[in-house]
């Protein structure tokens, strides 16, 4: 029996405090390298960005004139920026659910115990080894209306030329398709890892119980995979908000700003037009937008996650 010690409460508090101090210190020690690096290379620049967002800057990016929230006010009224917001949201909606779903299907297939499955696993994860730059160059070729392979194949079916990257109505979808392809490898690999971590004896019992594949998927596989799924969705979401490389190579934000997602617009403003103030304001808005989405994702998404 554990009896509380009412006799000398101050001493116990002291010990406990000492212990918490020690665990806190230890925890900090483990975190120290991360914290130092984060502060130097992420928090400091972000704070600087916030600072610049309320200034007009010169070409070197030095603040010259305090303008308060003018940068933000202008952005919120600017049709171009609103178009960027729309493009970004659409892009996220196109890519995240599709790539997670596709990768999940692939992972489920690749998780079957078949001969030569390792080869298929390598195939499916291969896009992870491709750089965005290299993949985009290849896709640009495939999308090319005059010499690209996609239109060549379509013309076999009598479908006339599609201007994949030049039609404002299709361009974003085309970029999304190539992005999904690029992301699948990585998402697949993580999900496969998650699937393989599931205790096989659980499947065994499901098999003995004679439940259908779909039932097993719903009741055993998916719940156990949920931490991994949660992770993959969150990361895809964040990455998707920050897509840059493929847009730079495939469309440069065009046609008619149809693919001018916020990150690209920031890049253009900061590195081509040298409007660091406006670029910083956009970066701040983007940061908070992702923050809200991620927060919601953690708040509502992680509830459904089943940790062992």
């Amino acid at each position, binding site marked *: 029996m554990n009896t509380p010690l009412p006799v000398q409460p101050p001493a116990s508090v002291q010990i406990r405090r000492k212990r918490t101090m020690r665990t806190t210190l*230890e925890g900090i*020690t*483990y975190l120290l*390298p991360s914290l130092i690096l984060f502060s130097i290379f992420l928090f400091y620049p972000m704070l600087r960005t916030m600072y610049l967002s309320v200034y*007009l*800057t*010169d*070409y*070197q*990016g030095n603040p*010259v*004139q305090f303008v308060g929230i003018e940068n933000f006010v202008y952005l919120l009224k600017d049709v171009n920026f609103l178009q960027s917001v729309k493009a970004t949201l659409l892009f996220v909606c196109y890519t995240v659910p599709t790539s997670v779903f596709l990768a999940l299907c692939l992972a489920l297939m690749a998780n079957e115990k078949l001969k030569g499955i390792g080869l298929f696993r390598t195939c499916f994860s291969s896009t992870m080894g491709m750089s965005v730059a290299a993949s985009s160059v290849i896709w*640009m070729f495939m999308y*090319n*209306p*005059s*010499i690209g392979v996609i239109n060549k194949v379509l013309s076999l079916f009598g479908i*006339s*030329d599609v*201007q994949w*990257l*030049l039609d*404002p109505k299709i361009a974003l979808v085309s970029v999304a398709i190539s992005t999904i392809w690029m992301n699948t490898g990585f998402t697949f690999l993580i999900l496969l890892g998650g699937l393989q971590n599931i205790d096989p004896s659980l499947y065994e019992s499901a098999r003995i119980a004679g439940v259908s594949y779909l039932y097993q998927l719903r009741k055993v596989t998916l719940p156990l995979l949920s931490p991994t799924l949660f992770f993959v969705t969150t990361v895809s979401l964040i990455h998707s908000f920050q897509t840059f490389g493929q847009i730079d190579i495939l469309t*440069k*934000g*065009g*046609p*008619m*700003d149809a693919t001018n997602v916020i990150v690209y617009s920031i890049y*253009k403003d900061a*590195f*081509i*037009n*040298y*409007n660091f103030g406006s670029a910083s304001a956009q970066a701040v808005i983007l940061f908070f937008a992702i923050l809200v989405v991620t927060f919601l994702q953690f708040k509502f998404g992680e509830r459904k996650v089943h940790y062992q």
Partner: protein
Amino acid sequence: MKKGIFTLFAFIFMILAACSNQSDEAATTPSENKEGKTEIVFWHAMSGDLETVLKEIVEEFNKSHSSIEVKPIFQGTYEEALTKFNTVAGTKDAPAIMQTFEVGTKYMIDSGKIQPVQKFIDEENYDIAQWEKNIVNYYTVNGKIYSMPFNSSTPVLIYNKDAFKEAGLDPEKPPMTYGELKEAAKKLTKKQGGQTTQYGFSILNYGWFFEEMLAVQGGLYVNHENGRKENATKAVFNGEEGLRVFDLIRDMYKEGTFYNVGQNWDDMRAAFQSKKIAMYLDSSAGVKTIIDNAPFEVGVSYLPVPDGVERQGVIIGGASLWMTKDISEKQQKAAWEFMKYLSTSEVQAKWHVKTGYFAINPAAYEEEIVKAEWEKYPQLKVTVDQLKQTKSIPATQGALISVFPESRQKVVKAMESLYQGVDPQEALNRAAAETDRALEIANKK
């Protein structure tokens, strides 16, 4: 208990230390290297074959100048190089020579980090009359030469001679006016079933071509004589001349004789090579490779002008070399030496022949290698002639604004909106208004 984690930290630091040893060796060297040569760091944006040629030229220079060593360093695209220059300008990591595209001219002057080469021209009485006068015109600002012109190009009309013959057109008589262009394009457009297999004409959605089509009619881009008299405050490209260009695109697109190739240079060339388009506008620097790769005969001609409008000529494109201010006197002298070397007729002849860029020094065209090359590629001469016939007026001098890259983005968007059925005047006005705002902000800085 914490020993383990500290061992780990110690290990990390060891790795870091190992890395830093490496860094000392690789660090940029000061103005003089071990052999006592003056070192000139030269940042450029020349990739692919251009870099190969540039390296050759630099090597020859280094061999013939025992006290100077030029180090060419590729820094990505013009934009990327400029971004980097921007962040290091004024520090020890800045280069001695920096290559910047023509539209960055005003920007470089405003940056205050550069040394106008006029100083050396005056000191040595260097004769700039030997340069191509249009090139001098472009790079003369407030009566001063700020940078040394280097790789220069202009736009030309490129067409498929075989397709001309097939359509019953004279391959030696390319269209010179909008009317002829439309007529030829109509004949060149081929349909098969409901599908167009060959379009007549195309222009890349790129601001440069619009600027040139404007200038060839004598139209200005911004006010105050293209920003050459004083800082420009307003875009004027949405006037009559600009509208003619946009109307042309809109009309031809509607007729189905114009093909939208997007904004990628390689896509446009691929469309031409695969016979998807029969005529298009390209940079004179790209002519040679097009001829080499095309499976048909290629013709080169002048930019077309609207009917009844007198031809004024073209603006020079490309890039120039800038000397930075914060380097030693000795380095500046050495950098100037290198710049002079680059503009000699022999070097320019080699540069012209191997890349297709113009020689800034027309004497180069008298060199044997150029003559031999022109024999082989008579089309190259057309590009030079077009430049020579250009009149010196503010329109062909080119606009001088610091927000050019941004303005170009707006023009591109306006061009793209034409294919969506937006009214040409409306599209132009919008681009002009957005350029105005960019100018206004820039003038506040």
